[in-house]
């Protein structure tokens, strides 16, 4: 078993933490959009949770790395904005639910894909899960804090901003996918 190690760079740690934060923002913002613009029913919430989870599972299980990580990240951001667009364009129209769930599944895909790409990023699974999960909690708190201080503005800007930060800190070259 790997001993606790700080061989990995600060940038790698920052990227994993930011990605956790990105997932937190993305998940909570997406669920908020569903509740606010479509329906707050338990069925919608359970279906959304299920497809996020299944998307993550699929992202993790898909073999190979022919499609580079930035594209998966871009797909997740695009999935969110497709959901936002649908929310504003078709409020309360649950006939669009299959498409909305597909958008959430695309976001979940990257949540799984990330761990396949970055499985050795911080030297051990312990640090990878710890940093990512703590980033996720920060994303959760930031979503609420953002809504507290700035109203709905963060729902429009924050996922793109966090996605851009993930992209900027993304490991390049050989270190990208060890």
């Amino acid at each position, binding site marked *: 078993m790997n*001993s606790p190690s700080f061989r990995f760079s600060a940038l790698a740690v920052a990227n994993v933490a930011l990605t956790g934060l990105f997932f937190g923002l993305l998940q909570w913002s997406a669920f908020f959009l569903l509740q606010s613009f479509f329906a707050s029913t338990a069925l919608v919430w359970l279906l959304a949770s299920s497809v996020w989870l299944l998307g993550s599972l699929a992202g993790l299980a898909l073999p190979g790395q022919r499609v580079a990580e930035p594209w998966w990240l871009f797909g997740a951001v695009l999935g969110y904005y497709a959901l936002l667009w649908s929310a504003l364009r078709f409020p309360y129209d649950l006939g669009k639910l299959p498409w909305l769930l597909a958008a959430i599944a695309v976001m979940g895909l990257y949540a799984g894909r990330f761990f396949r790409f970055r499985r050795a990023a911080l030297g051990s699974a312990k640090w990878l899960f710890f940093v990512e999960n703590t980033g996720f909690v920060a994303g959760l708190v930031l979503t609420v804090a953002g809504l507290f201080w700035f109203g709905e503005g963060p729902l429009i800007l924050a996922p793109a901003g966090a996605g851009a930060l993930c992209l900027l800190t993304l490991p390049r070259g050989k270190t990208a996918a060890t």
Partner: protein
Amino acid sequence: MSGRDSTALPSDARPAAPGTETSAARALVILALAGANLTLIQFVAMREFASLLGSNELVALLVAAGYFLGLSAGYLFSDRLSRRALTALGVATLLLHVTLPFSARWFVGVLVAGGSGPLVPPFVFLLTFAGITPFYAVFLPRLVAASSASDGATPLVRCYAAELAGGALGLGLVLVVTPGRMALLLALHLAGLLALLLIFLRARPVAWLLFVLPAAYFAAWPALDRASLASYFAQVHRLRAPVVLASEFSPYQRVDLLRVDTARGPAPYLYLNGNLLYGTRSLHQHNLMVSLLPRLTAGAVHTDAPLHTLVVAGGSLDCARYLAPLPGRLHVVEIDATVTRLTRTLIQEPGGGFPTNWELTIDDGKHFLGAWAGEPFDVIAVDIPVPTHLQTALLHSERFFGLARARLRSGGVFSISLAGRLNARVPGDAAARGRLAQRIVAGLQTTFPHVAVVRGEFTDFAWASDRPLDPLLAAAPEALAKFLATDAAQARDFGAPRLRFLDEALVRRRAEGFAPIGEADMQLVLRMSWRKLARRFHADDE
């Protein structure tokens, strides 16, 4: 992690040594069980633990943060725990969960009764942070690391996939088991925890006899559940001799229906996730003023013409009892079927004469109105006393008001509680800036040309319409008096509120300078949540 740990996965690269295939399967089963249990317990904790505090958005955040930070703690200490320490953590987690949720209810009651109410929120956070997730979280990095030492990085994918698959299974169980069956969910969780522990310890077959524990837990549930709830409500909510008539776990909340000794005699009290929604005189008056009076008054103005009425979130079904017999149609929309089932069978039907000529739709009010393409309504009432969740705050937003107006017939009336008094305040004053009543009225005024306020005994209510409201306001006192005179029980439940009104001009002045409630007004919700928490755990009154 100890080198003697026997939970290592076999290598992908090398042929598995004899006996290690079992270990690999065992590790995947452990992770799947951990994933399933994490999902099950998250679902329960977000409702049960939150209801210890009286659920609101702030409490939900506290519990969610505790749950996920507990995961982080488990990851962090995953390689610091010896096998013996991990076993001790597992046994401690098991022993805690054998006593939950009863012990937590009793403990919170003891804290409040002993004058330590302010310790309740930290206790709930600590319980969620340390008592639920750390034990489950330890296994994923630990099993990945045990394999990675000889195996490269692939086990992370396999192990994490096993845990996610377990999570999906847990979600499926939640979907299938939830309605009304918290006991079964927690018994399943306990069985999963026990199985995980026994598999991890490579326990002898005789140890599997311990599975009598979840069965005994399930069997003891009804008595312990009612006793702990009765104690909790007596101590925390200061109720006299509460008797639990029903307590069910819906997909949204824990629904508790109690019989309580009051000055008016025994009365049914309805709690949703620890928040009182029905039973006191002020809540009866809320129902009267927000949904009954607008319809009674509209009937008087239109000389008993058939009217189409919609009550959003009317789960107590008082509206059905009193409005369904009136000419026209009544539509009640409630998101939680458990609430209407329990209030119907335990409050309304035992009272006798409960009407059946009304329509109930189980749906989210926003979605119902958004999708409604039928006959427009003459009256729309929103039966929510105070918005402490984003979902309920959305029913006070400018967008929802626009939706309601679009579904009202011309001359129809929209009614909503202001959750307080529309008092005169100085606009721009920092203390006044977040005032809920003013902001609700500001939203109504941007949507409806006419907004008036009806002052009840405990709180204010707004009526809004596209036509002047003077005829309605003039008819209201007589309509109310006539209603209260029909039955002595009605006068006893509702009291004899003396109506006062704020006319449209005064209402406009008092709401001037305030912003309507927006799409995601977390500031409003968190302030209301904080105020409610402070009132419950820092003062004697609820």
